[in-house]
């Protein structure tokens, strides 16, 4: 079996598993919607205030939802031992990790991107910024999954890894948050956003190449 085949097989397997356990797809999505709903309730329903806060609210909520969904990335494989089998396979672990991250993003990241414009309308984000919001989410959420894979690989062996995971992962999410919500902000004011989008692309490229390596090393350490 070639490397590409193994990569595709991992994605296929994880997607099938996700379809069989639909709660894993739906839960982060509900969480995302719920958190966005909490903001108007907590801050007050002034349209101008909500409109100004919309990019940040949507992005912070997406960040939290992505972090919450991370646990499912390696958890079940770790519990039933298939993770060990993957590490024993002749393929580079980093490529298999990348496959798992891609599948995880398709399951948890993609639904966020689809639902986000709707929530943005609820918060009164100007139409001009809608395209930018989707663009930043398309570029940003894969980075969240990739960086998150490192954190979750480090903590998968722990019984109470959840709190530590947030401490490990959230500081590393900050650049994505800054550039993405800044881009949406600027777009809402009608300013050009190509610089932010380019930087997000660069971060995505870097994360795609670099993040699977420490994640693989961390998995090997966690399984031992």
């Amino acid at each position, binding site marked *: 079996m070639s490397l590409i085949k193994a990569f595709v097989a991992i994605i296929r397997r994880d997607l099938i598993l996700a379809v069989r356990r639909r709660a894993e797809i739906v839960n982060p999505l509900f969480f995302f919607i719920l958190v966005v709903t909490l903001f108007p309730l907590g801050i007050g329903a002034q349209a101008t205030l909500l409109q100004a806060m919309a990019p940040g609210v949507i992005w912070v909520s997406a960040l939290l939802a992505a972090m919450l969904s991370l646990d499912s990335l390696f958890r079940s494989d770790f519990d039933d031992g298939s993770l060990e089998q993957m590490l024993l396979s002749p393929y580079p672990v980093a490529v298999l990790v990348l496959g798992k991250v891609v599948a995880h993003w398709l399951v948890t990241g993609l639904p966020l991107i689809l639902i986000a414009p709707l929530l943005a309308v609820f918060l009164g984000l100007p139409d001009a910024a809608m395209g930018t919001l989707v663009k930043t989410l398309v570029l940003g959420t894969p980075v969240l999954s990739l960086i998150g894979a*490192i954190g979750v690989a*480090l*903590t998968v*062996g*722990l019984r*109470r*890894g959840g709190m*530590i995971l947030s*401490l*490990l992962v*959230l*500081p*590393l999410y*900050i*650049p994505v948050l*800054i*550039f993405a919500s*800044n881009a949406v902000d600027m777009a809402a004011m009608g300013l050009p956003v190509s610089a932010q989008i380019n*930087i997000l692309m660069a*971060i995505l490229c870097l994360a795609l190449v*670099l993040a699977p390596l*420490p994640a693989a*090393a*961390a998995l090997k*350490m*966690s399984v*031992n």
Partner: protein
Amino acid sequence: MSIIPAPVSRFFHRMASPPIFYAFVDKLIPWLSLIFIGLTGAGLYLGLFVAPADYQQGDSYRIIYIHVPAAWMSLFIYVLMAICGGIALIWRMKLAEVMMVSSAPIGAGFTFIALVTGSLWGKPMWGTWWVWDARLTSELILLFLYLGAISLYGAIEDRRTASRAVAILVIVGVVNIPIIHYSVQWWNTLHQGPTVAKAGKPSIHISMLIPLLLMATAFKFHYAIAVLQAAKVEILKREQNTQWVKKLIEENA
């Protein structure tokens, strides 16, 4: 053929053995303490009494003699931890692991000091304890990175596994620090620009620069003392079932 001269590499090989390192550190710490006290005394005297008051900020600028060295140390220690982490991952050297995990709380301490002194200075100068400024924010994020490393080390029971986990985390963090730094800078900036380490002449007067550099060196020595003490404890914990530790305790009892 090695690039490193034989005596130097022999020294490092000997130091990799915990008992020899322990005994060596025991002898080293008093000397380091002596240098530290001398440097701090000179630095504080020159900084607090000799250096002139700032024409705008009066005497309250003098907090830089603590604030700036602590901020420098906070970054320096993180990079050092990453280097130790790399050594620990590649050569599986126990001592590099020990130095890395012992550095984390000290680095967090320096970061905290930098934040606290910064906010104490910010109150009279900017009129507020805290501003969401680029440098303050990235320093705060650095503190979170330190805390993440410390809590990860605490969460994994086996010390060697824990050290390897921390090593991976710290290396990932070090790659991220410039990205975080520049992203935060893009986001907002109020903190004054670099004054010492910029191209050309530093825009700080020499009478203020000398105590600052003295204090910075003193902080380096303080770190060395603190990290070696912490490393001693860590080594004793790791090697608690070995003969030499037993003998050491019996001798000191």
